[in-house]
């Protein structure tokens, strides 16, 4: 079984819980804290800023914290999907792909699977970042640092989602970079590509927030990835074209939301479409908005967060 880009979730979890030196120590060195007396700005902040507006200082502080968390631990966050995708490209693209030849009306197989792998990496990492960060904060209760602050719940959720989506996007770019080692990568519809690569990680970051709130154990996070994300992805037309399926399975596939994401990103790269990308984009955007609102509602209720 292929390890998948999420195969490192255990390591991420273990490193974090035990507070082991692992990937964490690098961060400590990186920020040689000596910034102590910077003079600072004026003391006008003693008034009550209450964390500012939706995108105010409070929001930006949490966003920064969330981004630094994954950026400073590349061995847990960026290296694993890079390695996994080198394997995918080598085995499925080069070794098996050589036998498959072209697919979907003359597209090189390696190039055909690239958009799917980008989606796979982006959503796994977006989901994992949000779910792990929130669950780890709950597990060690330091999410209280955020919850007891004057940040609005919408600001909190937005910071978690944007940081997680950013990690998904960065992983997507890394996978494109790896693809470039094997083949040239065209970008036929850059605007569509950008839109899908924004919406899809945002959607899974938002879903990851729910995952992080409902999980009761680190194993639950793994289960979500293994039993929900991965089957959807593997039957989401990452590795094959819908047109090679029997009509029954093709119809069934259209119930899988992953099909629309993979198709949309593939349309952006290759200009090849099996379902209407504009409709997909509209549905995915709407879905993202709904899930994000659910996130805010859950935070406001304190679901999984407070007594």
């Amino acid at each position, binding site marked *: 079984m292929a390890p998948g880009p999420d195969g490192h979730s255990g390591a991420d979890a273990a490193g974090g819980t035990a507070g082991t030196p692992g990937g964490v120590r690098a961060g400590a060195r990186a920020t040689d804290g000596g910034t102590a007396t910077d003079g*600072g700005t004026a003391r006008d902040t003693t008034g009550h800023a209450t964390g500012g507006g939706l995108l105010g200082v*409070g929001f930006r502080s949490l966003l920064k914290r969330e981004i630094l968390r994954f950026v400073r631990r590349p061995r847990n966050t960026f290296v694993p999907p890079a390695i996994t995708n080198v394997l995918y490209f080598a085995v499925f693209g080069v070794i098996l792909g050589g036998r498959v030849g072209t697919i979907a009306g003359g597209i090189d197989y390696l190039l055909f699977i690239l958009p799917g792998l980008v989606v796979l990496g982006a959503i796994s990492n977006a989901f994992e970042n949000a779910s792990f960060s929130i669950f780890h904060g709950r597990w060690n209760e330091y999410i209280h640092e955020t919850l007891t602050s004057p940040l609005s719940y919408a600001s909190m959720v937005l910071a978690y989602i944007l940081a997680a989506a950013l990690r998904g996007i960065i992983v997507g770019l890394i996978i494109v970079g790896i693809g470039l080692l094997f083949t040239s990568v065209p970008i036929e519809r850059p605007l569509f590509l950008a839109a899908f690569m924004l919406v899809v990680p945002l959607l899974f970051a938002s879903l990851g927030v729910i995952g992080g709130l409902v999980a009761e154990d680190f194993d639950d996070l793994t289960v979500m990835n293994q039993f929900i994300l991965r089957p959807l992805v593997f039957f989401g037309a990452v590795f094959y074209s819908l047109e090679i399926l029997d009509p029954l399975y093709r119809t069934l596939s259209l119930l899988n939301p992953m099909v629309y994401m993979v198709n949309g990103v593939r349309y952006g790269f290759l200009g090849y479409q099996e379902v209407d990308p504009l409709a997909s984009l509209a549905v995915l955007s709407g879905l993202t908005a709904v899930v994000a609102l659910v996130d805010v509602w859950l935070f406001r209720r*304190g679901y999984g967060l407070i007594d």
Partner: protein
Amino acid sequence: MEPAIYADDLRKAYGDVRALDGLSFAVDRGEFFGLLGPNGAGKTTFINVLVGLAHMDGGTAEVFGYDVEDDYREARDRIGLSPQEFNVDRFFPIHEVLEHKAGYHGIPQGEAERRAAEALQTVGIYDKRDTRFDWLSGGMKRRFLLARALVTDPELLILDEPTAGVDVQLRRDLWGVIERLNAAGTTVLLTTHYIEEAERLCDRVAITDEGRVVDVATPDELRSRGTDKVYVTLADAPAETPALDVDGVREIDRDGDTLVVTAGGGGRVAPALLRELEYAGHEVVDLDIRRASLEEVFVDMTRVDDEAEELGVVG
């Protein structure tokens, strides 16, 4: 002016357990206020309601006039909390944890860095600023929790068992810091098992039990409600316990040549006691009054039956 804390008829149940059962009291601005009560009296639940870590089922809670649910952002911005449990971000060196916390309260980066350094200096762990929380010693962890509560420059400092498991010297240090803050105007709400600390530090204390406030008073007032013991040593051991008709005396025991008199107010009964004894022909050679401690009063007020052991009273 609105009080620093106003609680009225707070209710909160966990299943069948009523953690808060009509809790009501108010803390004035600038007060050093102690919240005492046996384990399970609802102290931490009350604090969690104030900071947004527990939803109340009913009642009203306000911080400086801001409702903790309707105006939660205003209320939380005024509170600095040093919790009982260690709940610190494990991913970042401690100075960054403080900068993030300040940031969540709307304090810009430069100022946040300055305050983080200042808070670490205040509690005396500035040289550990690049260390992760997990790698601090137990005492340093407690200090850090206080620094984190201070970094947002709160008007209300809530300390939930801030000296649990901390050695004597460090406790003195921490109290020094907190007393200075209080002197400078910060309102302090303290829960502690070390009752003599509350007795020494607090302007007023609330005794809570089973989710309610049993009484609110100054430590002196509370002590005066307890029973003192007057030890009267006589020149000759009496053959039997003398019957003394003195107002306020509850009980007289005999221990060799010493009479142990239990009375409502030791100082008030002593002169009459001496007169009565001398009138009865006894020669008094020594007198010692031991005042009730707040702890004894506390135990009396919160005792269910003989379960004093389970009250979690630490001497």
